[in-house]
């Protein structure tokens, strides 16, 4: 190995164009002669489409065409990418509403016009007549009819092990809670966008503005449009945030591609913010009814959770991913001898849901940690002690949970949960801080401290392929089918490549998200890139190093074992004799029509399980219900930190989004299913003013035994436990255990909680 890029906070390779304002986001891409697409969206939450009158719009100058469902009958509904549970198929979304509309914002028609302004003018002239149908707005209400012979509850996800009923029968006590998480979602700075063009000369369909999973989307677009995958290419540019929601295949992506093919002209669609808040995936909304059977000491004997997942109007690419993960990850870091979860997937007349950073875990961590706090209150021990009594011990690792999710068995690969708890408590001076807060409470302030623990998952397979080539110039090119959503993957892969091969990381160029450069790619989700693509990169770089040393040994008349590569230079280990540049090896090979190139393929069917905890200290304003966060600490075990700065960045960003879900962000609807939060005045994203400094304790106590570098992922640790920690801290501030049962904790809700007390 070269000396040490891994483990250092080296600067991001991707920063220069972004800081200079030379990024190329979807809206920056244009082609000559392009048409602009505008979507006419349903203004009804549920109803039968009686007629669509587009004559006036069609007659407007500059309008090229208008499509309704009739024009795209041959395009099948968009399929599931993940967690395709049987029974969900009839609930998939077609690219344009057919017969019924099921949420406000559903695409009903599309306009193609010579400019974005004209397209928007024309969209207003389309008259959609709808006969209203009753709306379903709560996942907890009795299932209704979705379509003849289909109900709004397609599937119940069931997971469990052990004898739950027996445990409840013999338990010392039972704790029971009803808890709800509000509907919110990832709201990237860049809205969605897609630009498609058809190159008739090569019979090639191309789409720009791709993100997250370009290869899967390429295959799916090919399938939906009846083309060979090799005749479709997707290109990822800069992506202004992913968070799970961006880059999934949406109706609009398919429509621009279909139109480019049909019109033989480029077609551009850029979403506006209102559309984004109406039409891109929502997430998170669940209500849990959970019970725990406990013994005298507050040890968990069994957990039984019945929960209701508000899926919105259709099941999109994520299939059952979110409720599946919620059910599977709920036990977290605790020993739960018997477990049963039933997750009711319920369709409602709201924007369809998908994954959002820490999907299913933001929700289940809130629920589980509320439960632990309730157990502590019931047996009258403190919230740290109840956790210590229930934590899985490091000696029990690897720990087989007895559940599976996303087609993998859950086995916690490594971890020392109690040790991280100790470090975090020391980091915040838990006892001292508690004493100070107690004093302040005695003086009339409402201040509190709360903590929440979690196990994360990362590195979802099944596989990743990486190809690395060294050019005669000495440049190193790493090609991967993975994607960048801004997380810094170029830097991380370059660091891994650099150390393995023995070169400077700044000489490594990372190509990603281009389907014409590599035949497969897993993409960027599930905190998988550093683990999956990282290990594939290590393998490719190791193979390349071996090849380079073999060739160099021939040229330098020695054995490969006698040689080393450092900073791109091949020398004898004993430092005698001549040396050569790695590019010279490539040059020598090129004379025999050979290339210095190698592939690394990594296939793995298990995930890795990092873990962490959050501690929040906050002050409640008794008169207004406002909350001011005074301190926020995240402790996280990453296994192996390739670039600590990037991990800390991931954590801080995640905390910001978590605070959004805990205190600010919520998609509200009125009783008719009219969305009330479709702009940034009504949908409250936290800003720099609301985000406290985040203290981070990053540890490497439990490297993953499943890959040689010990890697685990970092993308979701910051978001995971914010709702839980804030709820616990508010309880503590009010000295009302169990006070918070619903997120987000808006000032009005908090005021109502306080008024209940007196």
């Amino acid at each position, binding site marked *: 190995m070269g000396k040490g890029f891994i483990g250092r906070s080296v600067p991001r390779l991707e920063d220069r164009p972004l800081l200079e304002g030379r990024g190329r986001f979807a809206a920056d891409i244009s082609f000559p002669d392009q048409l602009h697409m505008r979507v006419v969206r349903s203004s009804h939450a549920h109803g039968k489409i009686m007629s669509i009158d587009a004559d006036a719009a069609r007659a407007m100058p500059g309008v090229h065409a208008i499509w309704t469902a009739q024009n795209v009958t041959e395009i099948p509904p968009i399929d599931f990418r993940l967690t395709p549970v049987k029974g969900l198929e009839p609930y998939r979304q077609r690219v344009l509403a057919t017969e019924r509309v099921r949420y406000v914002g559903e695409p009903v028609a599309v306009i193609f016009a010579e400019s*974005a*302004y004209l397209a*928007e*003018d024309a969209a*207003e002239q389309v008259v959609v007549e709808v006969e209203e149908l009753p709306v379903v707005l709560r996942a907890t209400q009795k299932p209704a009819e979705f379509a003849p012979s289909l109900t709004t509850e397609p599937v119940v996800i069931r997971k469990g092990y052990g004898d739950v009923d027996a445990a409840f029968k013999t338990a010392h006590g039972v704790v029971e809670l009803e808890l709800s998480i509000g509907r919110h979602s990832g709201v990237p700075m860049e809205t969605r966008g897609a630009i498609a063009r058809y190159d008739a000369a090569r019979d090639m369909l191309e789409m720009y503005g791709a993100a997250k999973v370009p290869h899967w989307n390429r295959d799916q677009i090919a399938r939906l449009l009846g083309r060979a995958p090799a005749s479709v290419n997707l290109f990822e540019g800069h992506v202004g945030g992913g968070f799970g929601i961006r880059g999934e295949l949406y109706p609009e992506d398919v429509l621009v591609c279909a139109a480019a093919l049909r019109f033989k002209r480029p077609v551009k669609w850029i979403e*506006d*913010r*209102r559309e984004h808040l109406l039409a891109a995936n929502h997430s998170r909304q669940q209500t849990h009814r959970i019970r725990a059977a406990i013994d005298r000491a507050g040890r968990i004997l069994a957990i039984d959770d019945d929960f209701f997942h508000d899926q919105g109007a259709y099941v999109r690419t994520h299939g059952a991913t979110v409720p599946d993960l919620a059910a599977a990850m709920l036990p977290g870091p605790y020993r739960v001898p018997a477990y049963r979860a039933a997750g009711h997937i319920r369709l409602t007349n709201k924007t369809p849901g998908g994954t959002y950073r820490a999907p299913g875990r933001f929700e289940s961590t809130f629920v589980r940690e509320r439960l632990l706090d309730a157990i502590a209150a019931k047996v009258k021990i403190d919230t740290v002690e109840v956790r210590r009594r229930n934590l899985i011990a490091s000696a029990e690792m690897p720990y087989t949970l007895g559940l599976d999710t996303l087609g993998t068995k859950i086995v916690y690969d490594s971890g020392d949960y109690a040790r991280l708890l100790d470090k975090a408590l020391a980091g915040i001076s838990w006892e001292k801080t508690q004493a100070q807060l107690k004093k302040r409470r005695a003086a009339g302030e409402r201040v509190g401290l709360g903590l929440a623990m979690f196990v994360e998952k990362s590195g979802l397979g099944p596989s990743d392929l990486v190809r690395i080539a060294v050019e005669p110039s000495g440049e190193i090119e790493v090609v991967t089918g993975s994607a960048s959503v801004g997380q810094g993957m170029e830097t991380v892969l370059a660091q891994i490549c650099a150390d393995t091969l023995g070169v400077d990381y700044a000489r490594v160029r990372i190509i990603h998200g281009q389907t014409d450069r590599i035949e497969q790619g897993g993409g960027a989700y599930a905190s998988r890139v550093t683990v999956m693509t990282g290990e594939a990169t290590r393998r490719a770089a190791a193979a390349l190093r071996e090849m380079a040393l073999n060739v160099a040994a021939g040229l330098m008349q020695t054995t490969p074992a006698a040689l080393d590569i450092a900073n791109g230079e091949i020398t004898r280990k004993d430092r005698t004799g001549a040396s050569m540049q790695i590019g010279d090896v490539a040059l020598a090979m090129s004379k025999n029509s050979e290339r210095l190139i190698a592939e690394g393929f990594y296939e793995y069917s298990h995930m890795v399980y990092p873990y962490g905890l959050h501690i929040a200290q906050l002050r409640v304003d008794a*008169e*207004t*219900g*406002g909350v001011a966060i005074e301190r926020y600490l995240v402790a996280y075990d990453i296994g192996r930190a390739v670039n600590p700065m990037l991990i800390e960045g991931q954590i801080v960003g995640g905390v910001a989004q978590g605070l959004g879900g805990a205190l*600010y962000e919520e998609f*509200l609807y*009125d009783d008719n299913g009219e969305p*009330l939060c479709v*702009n940034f*005045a009504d949908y*409250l994203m*936290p*800003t720099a*003013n*609301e985000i406290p400094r985040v203290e981070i304790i990053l540890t490497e106590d439990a490297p993953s035994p499943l890959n040689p570098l010990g890697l685990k992922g970092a993308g979701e640790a910051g978001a995971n436990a914010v709702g839980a920690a804030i709820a616990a801290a508010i309880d503590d501030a009010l000295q009302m255990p169990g006070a918070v049962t619903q997120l987000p904790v*808006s*000032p*009005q809700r908090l*005021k*109502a909680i306080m008024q209940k007390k007196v």
Partner: protein
Amino acid sequence: MKPAPFIHHVPKTIEEALAILAEVAPQDGRVLAGGQSLVPIMAFRMARPAHLVDINEVKGLDKLAVEGGKLVIGARVRHAAFHKNVVDGPLGKLLTYVVRHIAHYPIRMRGTFCGSLAHADPASEWCLVAATLGGEIIAKSKRGERVIAAANFFEGIMSTSLAEDELLAEARLPLLPADAKFGFYEFNRRAGDFAMAAALVTYRVAGGKIADARVGVGGAEDRPRRIPEAEAALNGKAAGDEAFRAAAEAAAKAVDPLEDVQTSGEYRRDLVRAVVRRALEHSA
């Protein structure tokens, strides 16, 4: 997010502006000042004026001066002008304190004082200032000029007594006496948001007792206004917790609170109580 078509007029003189306004007002013409309220609602197509009379190049509308015991604020004066003290004494301090609660820095660089009054958002800080201090609005049109007292200017949510062909040419705020105290407090969920409730108070202390109390509340009703019941609870009392609490209670009782999904009437009343008391505390 693309506005509907409109015609953009850029007059250079006030006469020209008034002439265009007279002509286009009946055809859905509107004044464009800082654009920080109008442009977003045009982007949503919730407003679709056929004509915009852009006053940003009109000469003489950038006046910011004291005349006859009043601070005169022309229609082109931006919020950011008040980041610095514009007049000696309590009024200047009050304005520099209040301005930081309006939106965010980039918005304050464009948005105008008079535009805020014309827009008449019930939670606007400048509307609250004008209503509480007894400001005047100078409305000009081809038909002539009139002076409207702030108390008669705000008519409801985003509704004023300005006629459609009238330009709000300037606003005037009376200077505060040198011994005046002021206090301001607003509550919102995020820094820079419109207030869910706001209070501005001014008074003097004479012989140990509060005199000339003004208590204005914004963001709680359909327009900002003074609350006489709260003022009565202050005048003649010693400045201190007891009087402040009584005034806050009186204000909470007196308002007819606006309701929305996030804010019930009862909660808004709680907020009024809190902001009035805190504004008074801030003044002390």
